[in-house]
């Protein structure tokens, strides 16, 4: 019995017990459901072992939506708690755990997964490739991310959640002030999913550099692919810093080192420093793909080519470099002198310049265009003004001397939600709607989608704009309650109302999937949006091999050229296609990683050793495995293409 005591939650509440029961029942329901409908075989063969970039992308996005639900539920709890003064819905400790979980889940397991999911699905199609460069590695990336996400998500029912904020600053996150295993969960879940992300970065750089269709020079890549390339370069250079910082933190917590301690020669600020050396590029890892998506969508629905292609690419390259030069602006108030703050103030403001260039390019793309107000375009149009407001408040925060007023207030919270929600979340929803027919062969309902957009946008404005005001009035972030005398009450209630509208928007978006699955027509053809780039030159939903014949390209809008300017995309005849085999090894490897992480969190060394042997064994197995892939025969391809109704 003593062994099991460590799994008890240090700070239980009825809510958590209710969640335990709910999680248990859901798991049982899922297992019974799959068994009843006899889908285990299908699930294993078609999804769990797949190495197909499209299916991996879809699994990323399903996980991201689940995590959006989890993080969103946390957000609503926080808004509910602060809706009225002196509320007793959550206590201080519980509130700490909720905002920590909200931050980690939304950044690492929702936004990152959504971004990588869309890249997975779209990039190989946009460059005319059959898959990514290393399909098996891609599957490992996904399953490591999934293992990390699940490890983090069980923390609140087994052993207790981390409670030191998503930034996890030491010495608060050290064992002196965070005694429960919560922060260990933080370290290990991020470590495991971070390894997956790093491998994704390498995988996509190689894919984009080596596997483009004939004729597609670098400067003829569609803009989303460009943004993906730059993003993955940033991933490869930024994530190792996080890996090492997490490892040092783990050593501090579990092996008694003093890297981030305030005594014994440790340096507590070093964690904040390393965290943001990774953390600021991370912001651009999230936003650059979003910029790429907007570029595709705005060009398509303005029915004009993208304005300023070269300056778009150039500004992204500059952003990628500048993103590594600004990290200190996250802790202007922590005691360095005016010189340091001055330097990082200026670099931070400099980033607004290339970003501004991009905003003007989008506006000029729409100039005199025939704009169609579809759901993806609505999100893009909503993005421009809202994101600009977020950018302007960002420049306000960049002024180091003024930052002493804003630092760690709700003003900051309002700012980064103002860039992340209209920037990243809108882009993901826009991209999801835009590429939905490519994934599933039917369109999402426009009417419900528009309702979702308006609920989300208006909800966003109500939820976050009041925080600018309360923040300037001095409401600190991460405070679980406040007294009535502060006068923050009414504006926080407004915030809660906005959060409610956003929750309705989420429900509408999910309902839209169900509704469209039931009612949308399946005959959408190849090109439902009258789009421009290469991914629309193949069937919907995309067949396993992507393109029956490798396309030949001579511009960034090859498909548009083939429609309007008589460019011939497919010159060769159909021949047999070489494809990689499915493999169960990635999911098994990730399973071992999950056990490894879980055992490490609780310092169960026997579990650590056994699972480490499992990990090494799986990798050794891979080294000696002979897998040459398989061929799809010419007849089979012709048969598939005929079924789609378009023999070429």
């Amino acid at each position: 019995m003593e062994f099991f005591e460590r799994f008890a939650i240090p700070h239980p509440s009825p809510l958590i017990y209710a969640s335990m029961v709910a999680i248990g029942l859901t798991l049982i329901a899922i297992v019974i459901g799959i068994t009843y409908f006899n889908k285990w075989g299908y699930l294993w063969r078609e999804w769990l072992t797949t190495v197909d970039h499209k299916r991996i992308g879809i699994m990323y996005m399903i996980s991201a939506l689940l995590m959006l639900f989890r993080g969103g539920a946390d957000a609503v709890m926080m808004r509910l708690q602060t809706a009225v003064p002196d509320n007793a819905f959550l206590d201080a400790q519980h509130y700490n755990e909720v905002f920590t979980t909200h931050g980690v889940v939304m950044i690492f397991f929702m936004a990152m997964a959504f971004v990588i999911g869309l890249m997975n699905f779209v990039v190989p199609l946009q460059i005319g490739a059959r898959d990514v460069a290393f399909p098996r590695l891609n599957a490992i990336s996904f399953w490591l991310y999934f293992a990390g996400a699940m490890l983090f998500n069980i923390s609140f029912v087994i052993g207790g959640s981390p409670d030191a904020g998503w930034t996890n600053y030491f010495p608060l996150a050290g064992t002196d002030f965070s005694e429960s295993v919560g922060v260990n969960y933080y370290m290990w879940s991020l470590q495991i999913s971070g390894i997956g992300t790093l491998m994704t970065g390498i995988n996509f750089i190689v894919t984009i550099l080596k596997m483009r269709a004939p004729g597609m020079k670098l400067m003829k890549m569609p803009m989303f692919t460009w943004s993906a390339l730059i993003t993955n370069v940033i991933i490869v250079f930024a994530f190792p810093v996080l890996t090492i910082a997490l490892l040092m933190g783990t050593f501090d917590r579990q092996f008694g080192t003093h890297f981030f301690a305030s005594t014994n020669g440790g340096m507590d600020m070093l964690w904040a420093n390393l965290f943001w050396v990774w953390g600021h590029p991370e912001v651009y890892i999230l936003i650059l793909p979003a910029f790429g998506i907007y570029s595709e969508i705005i060009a398509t629905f303005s029915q004009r080519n993208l304005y300023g292609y070269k300056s778009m690419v150039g500004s992204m390259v500059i952003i990628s470099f500048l993103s590594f030069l600004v990290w200190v602006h996250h802790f202007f108030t922590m005691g360095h002198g005016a010189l340091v703050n001055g330097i990082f103030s200026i670099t931070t403001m400099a980033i607004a310049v290339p970003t501004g260039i991009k905003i003007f390019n989008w506006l000029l793309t729409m100039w005199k265009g025939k704009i169609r107000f579809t759901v993806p375009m609505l999100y893009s149009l909503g993005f421009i003004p809202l994101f600009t407001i977020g950018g302007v408040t960002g420049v306000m925060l960049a002024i180091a001397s003024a930052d002493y007023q804003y630092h760690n207030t709700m003003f900051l919270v309002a700012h980064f939600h103002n860039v992340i929600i209209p920037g990243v979340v809108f882009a993901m929803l826009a991209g999801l709607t835009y590429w939905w027919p490519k994934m599933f062969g039917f369109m999402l309902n426009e009417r419900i989608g528009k309702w979702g957009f308006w609920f989300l946008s208006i909800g966003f404005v109500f939820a976050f704009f009041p925080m600018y005001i309360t923040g300037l009035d001095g409401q600190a972030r991460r405070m679980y309650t406040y007294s009535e005398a502060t006068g923050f009450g009414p504006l926080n209630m407004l915030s809660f109302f906005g959060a409610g509208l956003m929750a309705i928007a989420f429900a509408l978006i999910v309902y839209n999937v169900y509704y469209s699955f039931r009612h949308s027509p399946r005959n959408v053809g190849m090109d439902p949006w009258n789009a421009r780039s290469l991914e629309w030159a193949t069937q919907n939903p995309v067949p396993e091999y992507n393109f029956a014949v490798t396309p030949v390209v001579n511009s960034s809008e090859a498909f548009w050229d083939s429609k309007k300017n008589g460019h011939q995309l497919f010159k060769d005849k159909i021949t047999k296609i070489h494809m990689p085999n499915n493999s169960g090894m990635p999911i098994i490897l990730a399973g071992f990683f999950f056990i490894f992480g879980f055992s490490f969190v609780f310092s169960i060394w026997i579990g650590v050793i056994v699972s480490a042997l499992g990990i090494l064994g799986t990798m050794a197995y891979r080294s000696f495995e002979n897998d040459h892939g398989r061929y799809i025969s010419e007849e089979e391809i012709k048969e598939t293409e005929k079924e789609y109704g378009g023999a070429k």
Partner: protein
Amino acid sequence: MKELFPAKQVIGFVFSLILTAVALTVYFLDMSFEMGITILLVTAFIQAALQLVFFMHAGESEDKKAIYTNVYYGIAIALVTVFGTLLTLIWGYM
């Protein structure tokens, strides 16, 4: 016969042996800490560059440009991170 002899690699190998020997002097000779760490840092970075060029064949494929761009970018980021951190946490700290 001349084409078959890997002259470049042999020179590289000898060179890396020399660098190792120079690094070893830090242990065997009596010198100040600053002197020693300078020698170690300099020889280490030359050694790394040597390995990359001679034995990992950085400049020998079509991807020469991409590889070197990546390396230079990585060096730039590393320098910014290290010196930025020193500036923030030590030199510029009040």
